[in-house]
C-alpha cells in the first residue's frame, strides 16, 4: 500500500491508508525526504532529542524487565512511541503544561519530571504524583479521555487571564476518541478558542480493539473538522516530523494568525509494538506479523541514522550516551526502591486538613499495628 507525504511517495504499512496529508520528514532510513522541510532545531537540541529517545527506549525495556522481576507492578510499555512522546515535549516551552496518560513516561521525563518519580507509582507510591512546583505536568490520567476537558479548562483559564503565552499539550489515545469526554473537551476547545494542542497517539490498538473498530472515520485527525479546529496527521515514528507539527501547533495556540483558531488536534500515527500493559497478552487478539512492517520505521533507528548522516553523532558518542543512560536508569530504580511510606499516608492529603473521623481511623490502624505488628497486615487476603 503506497502512501504519499508532503514530499512525495513512501510506504507506510497497513492499516495506515493512503493519505496525502501525512506529515513526514525522515524516511525509514533516516534520510530527509525530498522537499521535506527539517524543523528549525540546533545540533545541540537534536542530540538532546536523540539522547532522550534513547533513554526512553532503555527505560521502557528495563521497566518491562523490572516488572517481570516483581520490582514494579503493572507497567504500560511505550515501545515505538518514545519518539513522538519526546518530540512533543521538546516542542514545549518550559512554562507550557503537559497532560499525560499512563503511557507517556517519556513525555513526562522530557518535560522535566525525574525518572525516580516515574518509577514510584509503579512501586505503589503516590510520591511520583507530587510533581515539583517548577515542572508543569499533571499527574498521569488513567480513566480514559478524562484529561481532555481538563486540559481545555486549563488553557481556557490561561486565556481568560491573558496568559496565552502558556500553551497546554494534552495526550490521549485512539481509544479515547470514543469517549464522551473527548467530544466535550474538543468542542469546548473550539467554542472558547483556547491555547491547547491535543495529541492523539494513535497506536492502532486500544488493548485488543483495533483502530478500525474504534471509529468509522477514515482518520482521527478529520474529527477536528467537526469542532471547527485544525486536524493534522503526522508520522508518529518520525521524531522530526512530530517536532515540526507540534511546534507549529503550539505557536498557533499562542499566536494564531488572522482567521486561525488556536487549538489543534494532532493525530500521531504510531504502533503499539508491545502489550497494552504487562498484564496483557496481545498474541490472543492480533497477528504478531503485523508489527514487522512498523518495526522498519522505528523512531530510535531513524533519528540515530539521521544524526549519523548529519555528522552529529559517531560511535564513540553513541556509546558514551548509552553508558550514561544505563547509569541514570539504574540509579533511578535503586532510589525508587528506597522509597518508604507510613500507612498514615492513607489519610493524608485527602483534604487540606485531616478530618476528625479520619484521624480516628488512622489512630485505630496504628493501635492495631502496635498490637499485632505490621506482618499481620500482609497476610494474603485470599
Amino acid at each position, binding site marked *: 500500500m503506497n502512501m504519499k507525504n508532503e514530499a512525495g511517495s513512501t510506504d507506510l504499512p497497513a492499516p495506515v491508508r493512503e493519505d496525502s496529508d501525512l506529515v513526514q520528514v525522515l524516511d525509514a532510513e533516516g534520510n530527509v525526504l525530498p522537499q521535506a522541510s527539517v524543523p528549525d532545531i540546533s545540533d545541540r537540541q537534536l542530540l538532546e532529542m536523540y539522547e532522550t529517545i534513547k533513554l526512553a527506549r532503555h527505560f521502557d525495556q528495563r521497566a518491562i524487565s523490572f516488572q517481570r522481576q516483581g520490582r514494579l507492578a503493572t507497567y504500560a510499555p511505550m515501545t515505538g512511541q518514545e519518539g513522538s512522546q519526546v518530540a512533543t515535549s521538546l516542542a514545549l516551552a518550559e512554562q507550557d503544561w503537559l497532560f499525560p496518560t499512563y503511557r507517556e513516561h517519556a513525555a513526562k521525563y522530557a518535560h522535566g519530571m525525574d525518572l525516580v518519580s516515574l518509577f514510584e507509582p509503579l512501586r505503589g507510591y503516590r510520591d511520583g504524583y507530587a510533581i515539583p512546583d517548577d515542572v508543569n505536568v499533571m499527574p498521569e490520567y488513567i480513566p480514559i479521555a478524562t484529561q481532555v476537558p481538563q486540559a481545555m479548562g486549563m488553557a481556557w483559564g490561561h486565556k481568560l487571564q491573558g496568559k496565552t503565552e502558556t500553551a497546554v499539550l494534552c495526550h490521549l489515545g485512539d481509544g*479515547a476518541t470514543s469517549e464522551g469526554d473527548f467530544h466535550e473537551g474538543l468542542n469546548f476547545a473550539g467554542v472558547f478558542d483556547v491555547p491547547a494542542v491535543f495529541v492523539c497517539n494513535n497506536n492502532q490498538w486500544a488493548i485488543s480493539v483495533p483502530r478500525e473498530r474504534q471509529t468509522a472515520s477514515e482518520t482521527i485527525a478529520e474529527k477536528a473538522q467537526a469542532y471547527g479546529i485544525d486536524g493534522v496527521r503526522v508520522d508518529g515514528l518520525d521524531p522530526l516530523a512530530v517536532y515540526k507539527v507540534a511546534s507549529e501547533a503550539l505557536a498557533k495556540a499562542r499566536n494564531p494568525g488572522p482567521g486561525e483558531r488556536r487549538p489543534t488536534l494532532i493525530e500521531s500515527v504510531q504502533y503499539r509494538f508491545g502489550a497494552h500493559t504487562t498484564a*496483557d497478552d496481545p498474541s490472543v487478539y492480533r497477528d504478531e506479523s503485523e508489527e514487522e512492517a512498523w518495526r522498519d520505521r522505528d523512531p530510535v533507528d531513524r533519528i540515530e541514522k539521521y544524526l549519523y548522516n548529519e555528522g552529529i553523532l559517531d560511535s564513540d558518542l553513541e556509546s558514551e550516551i548509552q553508558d550514561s543512560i544505563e547509569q541514570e536508569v539504574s540509579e533511578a530504580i535503586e532510589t525508587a526502591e528506597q522509597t518508604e511510606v507510613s*500507612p498514615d499516608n492513607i489519610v493524608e492529603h485527602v483534604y487540606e486538613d485531616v478530618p476528625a473521623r479520619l484521624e480516628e481511623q488512622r489512630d485505630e490502624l496504628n493501635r492495631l499495628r502496635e498490637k499485632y505488628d505490621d506482618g499481620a497486615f500482609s497476610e494474603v487476603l485470599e
Partner: protein
Amino acid sequence: MSSTASAQTGQKAQSLTLVEAIQDGLYTEMSQDDSVVVLGEDVGKNGGVFRATDQLYEEFGEDRVIDTPLAEAGIIGASIGLAQTGMKPVPEMQFMGFMYPAFDQIVSHAARLRSRSQGQYSVPMVIRAPYGGGIRAPEHHSESKEAFFVHEPGLKVVSPSTPYDAKGLLAASIRDPDPVIFLEPKLIYRAFREDVPTKPYQVSLNEAAIRREGSDISVYTWGAMTRPALIAAENLSQSHGIDVEVIDLRTLSPLDIETITDSFKKTGRAAIVHEAPKTGGLGAEIATTIQEEALVHQEAPIRRIAGFDAPMPLHSLEDYYLPQAVRIQDGIRETVDF
C-alpha cells in the same frame, strides 16, 4: 476446561474458579437463550481482560459477543436500547473504577425506565464489573463503590463470593426482569476452586447465605471479604472460644432483611465487614436496619470494619486499607468483650 469441552464430555460438574464459573454461567445462559448478548471493551477476541468471557466469541460469534468502542456511557446506553428490542444485554464494565461515565445512563435511565413508563418499558440487563482491591492493580482499578448503586432504587446489586454462587447468581440476574449490577470480587477470581454443575441452575437473588453458624456474634459481609471473615471466625473459635456466625449477603440490594435480623436476634452482636469506605457504606444501612428490627436483642455496639474514608491507596498500602483477618478478629473481640 472450557464449557464447550465439558459439554462435549458430558460431565455433571467441573472444578472451577470464580472467574471460570462466571464464564461458564455466561456460556450456559447464552446457550439457553439466544437473546442474551455480551458486549463491552475487549470482551470478544481477547476474552476479557480477566478472561471472564474467554471462548465466548469463538462459540457464539461477533453478533453475540461484541467488542465495542471504548465508551462506557455508550455501552450502557446502547444496552438499554438493545433491551427494548427483546434482547438481554450483559455489558461488561472493565473495572468498577471506570463505570462512572456510564453513571448517568445507569441511574437516570436503566434504574427508572420501568417506573417512568409505569411498567410499559423495562431494562432486563446485567452490568458485570470486577471490583475491589488486593491485586496490586494501578490506581482506579481497585474501587468498591457498591453503595452508589445500592442507593439507587430500581437497581439490584449482587456480589458472589464462591464459584457455585457466581454461576447461579449470574443466571438468576440474567433471568431477572430488572437491571442488575453484578459485582465480581476480582481478588478471589482465581483464589480457589469449587465443583460447579454444568447444567443451568439459579441461586436466588435476595437470599443471604449463612456461611458459618455461630451463637456469639453475627458478621455480615460479601464478596472478597467473606474469606477473611471466615478465617477470622475460625481463628477466634480456636484461640478464644468465640462462636462467630458469618453471613454472606450475596445480594446487596434488595437486602435479605429476614436472614440479617434472625441472625442478630440469635447472637445479639454484629460486625459488618466491607472494603468500601466506612462513611455512607452499606454497613451503615445494615446496622440501622438491625436496630430498627431487633434493637431489644442488642448486647453491644454494632461495629463496622471497613475501608478508610480516603481514596484507595496505591498498592504499597492497600494491605492496610483493606479489612484483613487481623482487623476483623480484633473488631469481633472488642464487640464480644463489650
